[in-house]
């Protein structure tokens, strides 16, 4: 795929990677959520995405927008806890951004990240530094933006850099105190534990990198 714009085919593949990551890490993500949260995160994602997997063949494929809009709706409606509307919002913002577009370049992807981050913040009220997946998405977005201005066509470099940034965010946020989601109820207990949403973003970015560049 290197150097050309991504189309519906790649978008489908990206969604597949996100879902597979959730299926493969269901227990692990829930375990992480159990340390300071309520332990439902992995299960919520896997249960909701399972509905998408079942309807996969019948999802609308007229264009990127229609496909992602349906994914957004299913995610919002079937993923439990805070994650449904948060992840659904991300897909939805991506869908809305893609209206009338048949393909997306790296600039588009950065814009989608911006729109998704804004949407998630609006939806759940989290600020950067509240120890949520926002704190993984922002460095990821910044890494992509950096590549975009340095080497706008290089998807390979973009994915590698982005996955490194996402992974780094796990450690960078470990000693923060959670301010949103179930985690925030346990107060200081969240200090020193990794945030499951951040780990999930990092794992997804790593799997994206593998899936699209190897």
């Amino acid at each position, binding site marked *: 795929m290197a150097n050309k714009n991504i189309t519906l085919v790649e978008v489908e593949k990206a969604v597949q990677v996100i879902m597979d990551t959730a299926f493969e890490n269901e227990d692990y993500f829930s375990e992480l959520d159990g340390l300071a949260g309520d332990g439902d995160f992995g299960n919520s994602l896997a249960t909701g995405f399972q509905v998408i997997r079942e309807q996969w063949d019948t999802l609308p494929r007229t264009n990127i927008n229609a496909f992602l809009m349906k994914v957004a709706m299913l995610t919002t409606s079937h993923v439990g806890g805070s994650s449904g*509307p948060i992840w659904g919002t991300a897909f939805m913002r991506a869908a809305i951004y893609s209206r009338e577009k048949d393909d997306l370049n790296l600039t588009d992807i950065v814009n989608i990240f911006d729109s998704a981050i804004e949407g998630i913040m609006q939806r759940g009220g989290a600020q950067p530094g509240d120890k949520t997946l926002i704190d993984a998405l922002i460095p990821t977005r910044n890494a992509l933006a950096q590549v975009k201005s340095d080497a706008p066509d290089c998807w390979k470099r973009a994915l590698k850099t982005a996955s490194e940034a996402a992974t780094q965010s796990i450690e960078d946020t470990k000693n923060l105190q959670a301010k949103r989601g179930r985690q925030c109820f346990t107060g200081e207990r969240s200090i020193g534990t990794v945030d499951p949403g951040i780990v999930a973003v990092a794992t997804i970015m790593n799997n994206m990198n593998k899936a699209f560049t190897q």
Partner: protein
Amino acid sequence: MNKFFNDPNNFVPEMCEGLVMANPDTLKYVPEYNMIYRSDMPSNDKVAIVQGSGSGHEPAHIMAVGKGMLDAACPGNVFAAPPVDFCYECIKRMNGPKGVLYIVNNYQGDKMAWQMAEEMALAEGINVKGIMVDDDVSVKDSTHTIGRRGVAGNFFVIKAVGAASEQGADLDALVKLGNKVNSLVRTMGVALTSCTPPAKGSPIFQISDGEMEMGVGIHGEPGRRRDKMKAADEIIEELFNAVADDLPFQSGDRVALMVNGLGGTPISELYILYRKAAEMAKARGLTIIKNYVNEYCTSLEMAGASLTLLKLDDELEALLNAPAEIPIRVF
């Protein structure tokens, strides 16, 4: 569980089917989205007014769909926010040249679903706006909300914007009006029993005979405190003072007063409550212009009641008196 239902998973759809079978000329039903709508909608002449929250609060909101009230409702399952695609489809299908107003009670799930649906619809060029209802003075934040909950006062918001929309008001005017009503309406409720969602099969919370949950939420969320049961007049005193002190309502104010049954309390008791509420209104110098003693926003078969006060001005009084026709009727 002493309830009438078949497969618990069909509770909401079968209720919707029954409702539409009972009102074949005025209502239509889209099963995929639990959507009940006026058969003469969408329309070129009016802003569409829509709402959808959890089911189990009937007559809110599917049975409030009709001329002068809601144009459509798309409830979720019992006590579950409608999925975002219900809201989105509801907006899309009701949209006409004058746009769509959605009303949402302040519950996290409902709010998120509607706001996402709004974003999606906006992206498609639909002229849609929302108003949020948060009339419950019982608690500031609660299990399912940031800020106050939206409960029975919702009826007055619907009635006002429904009437104004029928008279041709545009979307911005309706948003302003809805927010005005919400700013003037206050409610608090009390539960004497719990209730049982059919699919759950067990009560949503535990309460003993002789106890009450003062300030309960309409999904049985905790209120201000658990207390032992008291005389009707004492209970109304607490509800009335909490509600009236909050705005605050002041001597000389004209008001609408609602005593709303939560589903399992018979209307005989609601009038006993109304009696004391009307006395208290008088003692405070409030003039009751209109009263509402019935079920408006329930929690399945929960025994209990809520009291709502709305401060009136000429505009609101006229809107409350405007004609409306919904499935909830006697004749």
